[in-house]
């Protein structure tokens, strides 16, 4: 039976909560922004203007200030170990807020919203809700908190995916996403319960020490790890938890696709890194697992399968969004390579790769939206001759795709370079993984180049003269993203230093 806490205990709980709130300001601020957006929507109901999107943009930009203030705060646990504040979390806070900002920017450019939906109120509020959820995912230090934050992200994402209510593909995508999400969350929670059974702890750091001090049944732990991986694997879209990805990416509104493929994936990676680095032991004689299978070997299998499957299946895609969906499965595989290395350099490489993926994938989807605005299509065939009609869009998309392949002088190359460097610091142990990564990226060249091939090498069947200029502001944003992709490919030091900063996890014993 529960014993009621005494008055003094309650006092200390309240004091501790008060203390924690100081370190929780960005999240509180974002929650207020979420509510403000609903109010703004009520006030400005029915008016087609940019009030909502501008409010969201300014609001999200304001968050940066509060995150910046957190940089000088000491790393530590909040709310009785539910939550942590560390450099790793701050890195991802910036990452998710920036993703939110970019998601809003590219939503503003998408003309499909004007014809498909009446009101954008919930949309922007949900984008902000997802930012909150993802920030919490990256900061969770407790299995309860992990589950809650993941569900917050998932539910926002389900609604965003199905935001085009009258479009059957959008609704179908949302339903598929929901069903897969439900199943994988269930599996993950089952895994959590097994771990709780082993350790009687929910806090990650406590789990780690309980496992190493009291020992454990390796079969149960590996089973629990596998189940938890089902939940994380679903978020990062890695094989064999990827089945939702192509349909959802194709059916969802394109800005949502971009947002999911970058931010939601990154949140999954943040969780995965924190959970496996901190909670589940690895290596060393204390942690002998059954027949040499530990979670690193599980990740290796998932990573190799994702790289091969994503890149090979993408070869046959005829729809650009679907093609990018398979490419994003493949990129989950590359990102996992950095985690497999299991050291600070590997983490740094993964974070840098995430930054490069952020830039090039948002860029690619942005151009896809601008092209769809003009042509009304996302099919590869309809890209024929676009290079001449939309010169800047064509050039920008080519740069983003080259970056996705990983060719210099683009940021994507630096990401791959760091990942492969991290693998090779382990000598010849992981060389074969690097070889698979390298060979699959050659395969990826073929399908990525299908897009420039259609844009530049083939002539458009119709010769009608139509104004294809996407407008001044989109052109500037596109050019800026393209410039940054190349600039960071040549001068990546600041971002690599930022990734180094972000690779410090609270409670990690290296």
């Amino acid at each position, binding site marked *: 039976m529960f014993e009621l806490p005494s008055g003094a205990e309650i006092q200390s709980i309240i004091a501790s909560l008060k203390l924690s709130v100081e370190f929780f300001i960005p999240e509180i601020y974002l929650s207020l922004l979420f509510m403000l957006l609903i109010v703004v929507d009520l006030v400005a109901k029915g008016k087609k203007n940019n009030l909502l999107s501008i409010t969201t943009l300014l609001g999200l930009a304001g968050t940066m200030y509060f995150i910046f203030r957190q940089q000088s705060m000491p790393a530590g646990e909040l709310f009785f170990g539910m939550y942590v504040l560390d450099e790793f979390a701050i890195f991802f806070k910036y990452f998710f807020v920036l993703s939110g900002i970019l998601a809003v920017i590219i939503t503003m450019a998408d003309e499909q919203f004007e014809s498909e939906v009446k009101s954008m109120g919930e949309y922007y509020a949900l984008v902000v809700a997802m930012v909150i959820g993802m920030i919490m995912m990256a900061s969770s230090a407790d299995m309860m908190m992990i589950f809650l934050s993941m569900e917050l992200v998932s539910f926002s994402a389900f609604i965003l995916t199905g935001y085009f209510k009258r479009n059957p593909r959008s609704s179908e995508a949302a339903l598929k996403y929901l069903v897969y999400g439900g199943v994988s969350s269930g599996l993950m929670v089952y895994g959590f319960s097994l771990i709780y059974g082993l350790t009687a702890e929910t806090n990650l750091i406590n789990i780690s020490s309980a496992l190493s001090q009291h020992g454990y049944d390796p079969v149960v732990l590996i089973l629990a790890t596998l189940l938890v991986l089902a939940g994380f694997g679903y978020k990062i879209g890695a094989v064999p938890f990827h089945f939702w990805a192509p349909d959802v990416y194709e059916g969802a509104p394109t800005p949502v696709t971009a947002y999911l493929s970058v931010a939601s994936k990154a949140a999954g990676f943040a969780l995965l890194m924190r959970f496996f680095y901190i909670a589940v032991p690895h290596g060393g004689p204390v942690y002998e697992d059954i027949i040499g299978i530990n979670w690193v070997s599980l990740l290796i299998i998932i990573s190799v399968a994702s790289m091969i499957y994503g890149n090979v299946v993408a070869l046959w895609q005829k729809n650009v969004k679907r093609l990018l969906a398979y490419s994003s499965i493949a990129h989950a595989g590359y990102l996992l390579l950095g985690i497999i290395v299991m050291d600070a*350099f590997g983490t740094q490489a993964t974070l840098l790769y995430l930054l490069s993926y952020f830039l090039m994938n948002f860029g690619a989807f942005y151009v896809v939206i601008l092209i769809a605005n003009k042509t009304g299509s996302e099919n590869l065939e309809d890209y024929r001759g676009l290079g001449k009609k939309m010169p800047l869009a064509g050039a920008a998309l080519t740069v983003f795709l080259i970056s996705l392949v990983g*060719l*210099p002088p683009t940021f994507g190359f630096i990401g791959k370079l760091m990942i492969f460097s991290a693998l*090779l610091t382990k000598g010849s142990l992981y060389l074969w993984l690097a070889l698979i990564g390298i060979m699959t990226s*050659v395969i990826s060249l073929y399908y990525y*180049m299908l897009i420039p*091939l259609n844009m530049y090498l083939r002539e458009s069947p119709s010769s009608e003269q139509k104004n294809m200029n996407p407008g001044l502001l989109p052109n500037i944003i596109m050019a800026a993203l393209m410039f940054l992709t190349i600039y960071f490919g040549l001068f990546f030091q600041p971002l690599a230093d930022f990734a180094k900063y972000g690779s410090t996890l609270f409670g990690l014993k290296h």
Partner: protein
Amino acid sequence: MLSLIVFLPIIAGLIILAVPSSQKQIIRIVSLLAALAQGVLAVLIWRAYDPSLPGITAGPGGSPLGSFQFVEKVPWIGLKLGAMGSLNIEYFLGVDGISVTMVILTALISAIGVLSSWTIQKQVKGYFILYNLLASAMMGCFVALDFFLFYVFWELMLLPMYFLIGIWGGPNREYAAIKFFLYTLFGSVFMLLVMIGLYFSVIDPVTGNHTFSLVAMANQANYLQDAILGPHNVMWRYIAFAVLFVGFAIKVPMFPFHTWLPDAHVEAPTPISVILAGVLLKLGTYGMMRINFPLFPEVFHASMYVIGIFGAINIIYGAFCALAQQDLKKMVAYSSISHMGYVLLGLAAGNSEGMIGALYQMFNHGTITAMLFLLVGVIYDRAHTRQIDKFGGLASYMPVYAALVTVAWFASLGLPGLSGFISEALVFVGAFSSITTRYIAMVSVLGIVFGAAYLLWSLQRMFLGKRKPDAAYDLEVGADGHEHIHFHDWKGKIDLDGRELTMLVPLVVITIFLGIYPMPVLGMITSSVNKLVEVLTPLAIR
């Protein structure tokens, strides 16, 4: 100076970006000016080059300055990587005897390529932007002394080349362009892994950090004993050597990785064929001389005869394929494969004569093959066909053209008095005097015979005899009672016009001059090649 010569074309490309696409003439002139400025810089570098400095490895005190020339060395990126130390990349340019000849060749061929591009009418602006990007990347490859920088330039060449073949190429251009891209990328991605492995194996003696510097890598004393590519890891060193070799061999192209070349050449527009044959193929053998061999000398020593055998296969197989071609451009493409085989053979000899011959052959092949492709382009512009049997008796109607073709063809088959002869002779001298390659050289000599066969045969079929019934041109009896040639829709001059002569005459002059007096080039390269041979010779033999 080197930065300027590398980035001039990119600057020109940026200027062109600002020019409206209707101003075709301005775009061409800007490109030409950049190419000419590059040429002037190349001449300045040539005049100021001190042939006594060896290059290849660092000079006294571990500094590149006493060994390389025109050195520019600036820290570019210095990352902290936690426990792994740091990632240091330098912007490091410099030339020695091996690269300085290639710099001059690149400047020359780039300028000729711009002139040859004058007739491009489709999307002129895009064409010249890509062309200038390609020109910069090629030049960068030859002067980069930091492996990372080299790799960036190396990969930077691929995309412009893809589009230049893919947009401005012939009917089957999509296939040729992606084939080129995939083949070369396949070769170079493995190079990336070797590059990373080398980084973690080599220590810069001056700073004590890991380094990408090719100069430091060329000295075996700088390797960590137990690192992944350190001297103790014999197996990985062999694998790394093989991987790098394949990467470069694809570019050469060496049998059996050559199949992209005929496709790329046949589909590419003339100026791009000129660049491809004149400069890009040299990057393969240059990479071997700069990176592949000096970094793994003991592996090179063990695999000399394998390289020699592949060289011989290239020579003979290329010649046989050329013999079978109906398409003149395809014939020239296969002759390119054959002639790059001489370079491989000379490198495989591993001695000074062979290496000097190989490097000189690289230079000569650049000028001669550029000439061959330009000449093929001339007749294709007029007749819109390259089928050898659609011509006949051209010598009577296009005497200047016929004369230049004869010079180029004879230079290609190695007639004494023309530059190709000297380099091929040196290659064979080197190959015969090395025990390893002696018998290979004996077989390879046959290649010269077959080379003469396809060149002379094509010359005879196209230029001698009479017009064939299904020829690609008509004959009309003019007012003066003589027969005149007439191409169906060709409005220009029948024989070579001024622009074509401007492109071809300098190459002819160089070919003849260097055939009679090769010292300007040989003098520049000798000390570097000797140093390279010294680096490649195992200590036991030295």
